[in-house]
């Protein structure tokens, strides 16, 4: 079914990636298999776990519930775009410092969810933060340290911003 192949250009962390995929290729699979960006993880592949969370035009989405063809022309950000020149960003550092990961499987999804939270609502209430974090599953940490890390990153960023 060669006519069912699509030639696409995805914009990933600001860089153009030209790929050729079937329509049924999910964005998550395209990132991992066609673009070599294996930071985005796949857990359930049906929208429940959030391991595949990426940002599309600044909003968190499930990459397993989007087809790559639908992402053309949109700005996609993945966990690979967070560190700059090998240096962890404040959110990544806060995850490490607050023991917000153990096995790390859920971490890319939580980092992207956390990025969306920090960008849209840096002063988020504790209640709303817990609600937002219920989006993704973590089988190791018990979530408390993830919430703590996001709060710590928000604090670090606001003092950096003020300085």
């Amino acid at each position, binding site marked *: *079914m060669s006519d*069912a192949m*699509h030639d696409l250009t995805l914009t990933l962390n600001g860089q153009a990636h030209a790929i050729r995929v*079937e*329509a*049924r290729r*999910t964005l998550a*699979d395209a990132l991992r298999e066609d673009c070599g960006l294996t930071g985005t993880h796949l857990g*359930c*592949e*049906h*929208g429940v776990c*959030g391991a595949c*969370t990426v940002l599309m035009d600044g*909003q*968190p*989405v*499930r990459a*397993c*519930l*989007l*087809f790559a*063809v*639908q992402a053309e022309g949109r700005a996609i950000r993945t966990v690979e775009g967070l560190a700059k020149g090998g240096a962890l960003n404040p959110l990544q550092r806060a995850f490490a410092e607050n023991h917000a990961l153990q096995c790390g499987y859920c971490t890319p999804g939580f980092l992207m*969810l956390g990025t*969306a939270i920090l960008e849209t609502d840096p002063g988020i209430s504790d209640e709303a933060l817990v*609600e*937002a974090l*219920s*989006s*993704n599953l973590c089988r190791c940490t018990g979530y408390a340290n993830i919430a703590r890390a996001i709060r710590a990153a928000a604090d670090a960023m606001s003092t950096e911003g003020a300085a």
Partner: protein
Amino acid sequence: MKPAPFRYHAPRTEAEALSLLAELAPEEGRVIAGGQSLVPAMALRVARPSHLVDINNVAGFDRLAVEDGWLRVGPLVRHAALGEGAVPGPLGRLLEVVRGQIAHLPIRTRGTVCGSLANADPASEWCLLAATLGARFHVRSLRGERVIEADAFFGGFMTTALAPDEILVELRLPVLSDAAHTGFHEFSRRAGDFAQAAALAVLELREGVIAAPRLGLGAVEDRPRRLLEAEALLAGRAPSEALFREAATTARAGLVPVDEDPYRLDLAETVIRRALSAAAGMPAP
């Protein structure tokens, strides 16, 4: 967990979308909106559409406006957009509460209100809201436009009055009067899960008694609906815990639940009492 192959179409206008659907619906072509129900079903291979008509690029489908007493919701209005910002007053506040019960943030940014209605999951919050408020469904195909009333739209478990070549182009929700009080309560096992029982109550209080009550129940029967016998019992009476208990017992007697579990009927009674209490400004029973 990979969807079966399909052909992908991305129309840019409504006319193009309707003609693609007219052509492809007989070959199991389907609309994809947010994809938050369809793509999981495709991943599980419960759904195997041969063609997808993606309406995400259709100009004007994201319209959201208040006009002539109706909130008009286009096919690309995402869950996240239907809250207090959409309309002032009791309806906006109700939408805000209801939206907070639907899935999670990354699903609300993508899933659509009209997609939820077309999907007609009996536990869908938007379906319960539409059924209780008496929404109108504007649907179009190449054959023309028709308007379907809420009590005729839901046909049973994940079944609607939509024909395969029709697109739900607009949901219309009646704007609630400033005197309306609303109460919504749902029970689900985990945050963001589909409800096991959900109830919505809308009423006014005039001189201490209930006026114009609307009471809806979702997730218990194969489709959401108004509980007319309980409504009749509430009208003209003063709100009290005893009255709400009586309304819940009356409602229970007429329910045909999706499963045999008596627990679900107990839940139905509880969510009804809590929704009514919330609407009347009383503490949760």
